[in-house]
């Protein structure tokens, strides 16, 4: 993916968020006990599709392009990648299925828009929830230990 590296120092907000999400995701996963995999497979949700869609540098690059300027055509997106039109379409399909990209017709053109809602939902429903639980467990532990010391 030479063009992505050629993108250089630009660290788009989407990529930044992805890094945050994947780091937090990993820490949540690691903090859970062994039954994590069971829970994961028993409950395949939209979140899985979002994480899967974000777990690819080309797709994150496409999201970054839309973050810079929304409402792009396939032709425009394609011109930024060293990839066939079909390859780009396949990536866009994954992003669209995950709800991260929404398309609209404008005359003869199909325009691609970034939809930040699924990322917000992962943040609200997932990361905040576990972070809260970890924090409250630590607070309870602190209270208990301090109580014993008295």
């Amino acid at each position, binding site marked *: 993916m030479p063009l992505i590296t050629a993108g250089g120092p630009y660290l788009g*907000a989407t990529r930044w968020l992805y890094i945050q999400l994947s780091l937090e995701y990993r820490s949540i996963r690691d903090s859970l006990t062994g039954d994590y995999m069971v829970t994961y497979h028993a409950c395949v949700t939209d979140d899985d599709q979002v994480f899967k869609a974000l777990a690819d540098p080309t797709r994150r690059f496409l999201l970054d392009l839309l973050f810079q300027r*929304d*409402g792009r055509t396939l032709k425009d997106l394609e011109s930024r990648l060293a990839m066939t039109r079909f390859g780009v379409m396949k990536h866009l399909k994954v992003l669209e299925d995950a709800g991260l990209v929404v398309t609209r017709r404008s005359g003869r053109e199909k325009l691609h*828009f970034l939809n*930040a*809602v699924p990322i*917000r*939902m992962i943040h*609200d429903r997932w990361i905040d929830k576990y972070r809260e639980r970890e924090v409250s467990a630590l607070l309870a532990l602190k209270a208990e230990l301090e109580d014993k010391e008295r």
Partner: protein
Amino acid sequence: MTDKAATILVFRIVIKASAQAIWDAITKPEWTERYAYGGRAHYELKGGGRYHHEASPEMKSFGLPDKVILGEVLETDPPRKLVQTWHPQFTPDMIAEPPSRLTYEIAEGQGVCTVTITHDVTGAPMVAGMVPGGGDPAKGGGGWPWVLSDLKSLLETGARMPT
């Protein structure tokens, strides 16, 4: 080519609720005060009808005016489509901007509805900077993603997200 000056933002969410329930949650004051920033929406649901969003007591305590958002209803097709102008009165800068154009579309299928907000914020950079969210909802930075996420929680679980 598309008009370069046009700035359109799109926000989409899938909600397990009927189109009518979603329509009511967007257009009825007894619903709008129950999620996101609260406050009561007042719509005259017909082309050319008036719209305003009545500030919640909390918004008023921050010094916001009684009518925090003004607008005009441009098109209604209940419970599927609502087009309106949307002009927030949060700051003098925003008041000075032209009204933005907001479209709600609700598509029903397979027991769920897809809600799409298309916000044409052309010529309104303050609004364009605010509505994508990404900030702290408690400080007013939630934008449409947070509003829609909260609406989904309310309609699917009967309760808001804990904040």
